[in-house]
């Protein structure tokens, strides 16, 4: 391990008139800072093997995506500001010259297991492009024909699909958006379902 130098890296040394006694301290400081900088996210310069390989990638938040040349793609992090939430996300930028969709939001919100609703067991994940994918199974009843879309961050419903879960083929239910708060879709209402029957569901939305 290299001792931490006190002075920051200086790319202006050595000076033309510096004595070696001065330059030696400057060299030590720069080599030490270089070592310390490089060891972050990379295998250390003095490692027995693999010096220079990445160990992980920490992205400092960017205000906007970088420019890419033809043949290049880039990864970076940027804040996503939504009515429901502001969070940081990993972005991909296609090569320079790509047409629509140059900047792709690769991640979306944090993943967790939502608390199950009565008659509903589900979870969610995300797809590139700011999409959220809900899936699981639901059992509609006379008293509860709702399909909740937790977390409540969906701003637009793209598609819904049901399939009978069980041994008897049945007609799939259809849905209506039950209550749409301004800018958010929270709940779908099942229609034409068979009571006490479980259905697999998959719902895709924009966040």
């Amino acid at each position, binding site marked *: 391990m290299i001792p931490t130098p006190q002075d*920051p890296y200086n*790319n202006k040394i*050595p000076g033309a008139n510096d004595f070696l006694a001065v330059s030696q301290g400057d060299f030590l400081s720069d080599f030490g800072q*270089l070592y310390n900088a490089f060891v972050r996210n990379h295998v250390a310069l003095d490692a027995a093997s693999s010096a220079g*390989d990445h160990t992980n990638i920490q992205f400092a938040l960017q205000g906007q995506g970088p420019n890419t040349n033809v*043949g290049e793609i880039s*990864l970076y992090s940027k804040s996503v500001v939504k009515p429901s939430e502001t969070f940081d996300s990993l972005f991909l930028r296609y090569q320079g010259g790509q047409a*629509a*969709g140059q900047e792709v939001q690769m991640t979306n919100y944090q993943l967790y297991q939502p608390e199950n609703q009565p008659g509903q067991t589900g979870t969610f994940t995300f797809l590139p*492009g700011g999409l959220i994918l809900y899936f699981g199974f639901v059992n509609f009843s006379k008293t509860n024909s709702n399909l909740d879309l937790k977390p409540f961050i969906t701003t637009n419903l793209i598609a819904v699909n049901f399939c009978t879960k069980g041994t008897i083929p049945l007609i799939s239910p259809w849905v209506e958006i039950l209550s749409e708060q301004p800018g958010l879709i929270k709940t779908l209402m099942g229609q034409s379902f068979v009571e006490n029957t479980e259905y697999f569901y998959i719902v895709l939305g924009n966040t």
Partner: protein
Amino acid sequence: MSYNPNIPQASSKRVISQRQILANFSGIFDAFAKNHSPLGNNDLQGMHDIMILRDQTNVGNPTTTATQVAIYNKLVSSVPNLFYRPNNSQTPIQMTYPSIQTGLQPSPPNTYFPQQYSFVAGPFVFYAGIIKNPSNGQTITLTPIVSQLRFVGVGVTNFNGGNTFVNSVVASNILANTFQIVYQTAPPGINRDVYYIAIGN
């Protein structure tokens, strides 16, 4: 003066070496500033700002050991894509597709695309959308074109037939990038919209 790993020479005069060493320290600073927080900022130096990946097609897939994985850029049909290689140099996985269409459309403003597509590793194209009141047997064409649809699911919404009619729909005649919407019953005057979710590669 570009970076020179072979300086200083034992026989060089100090006035020569000073310029060479200065150039190397400056070159290291400039090179490191690409993609990284610059040297000199003790709190952040070394962390990445962005990661621009250059085409590695000619270099080939990187070798990974038992405890390594790699991500890199390789051209597919001349378009750069993100690849992931698992440990032990297992089969590389393409993580991205060259295009995507999600979210708001340019016109009219603040209106979402009724038909969108994204991608998942494979790569697979993940289509979803709504078809407004399609006719019985209507063919739906998905873009971008893929070689094969692996999954198509359809469902009904906005049905105005109440409980009088059987409201069932299937995806039929599934081809490379098309399928037909077929109803069990399609009486005149009954309207419904159809959601679809499809996956192709």
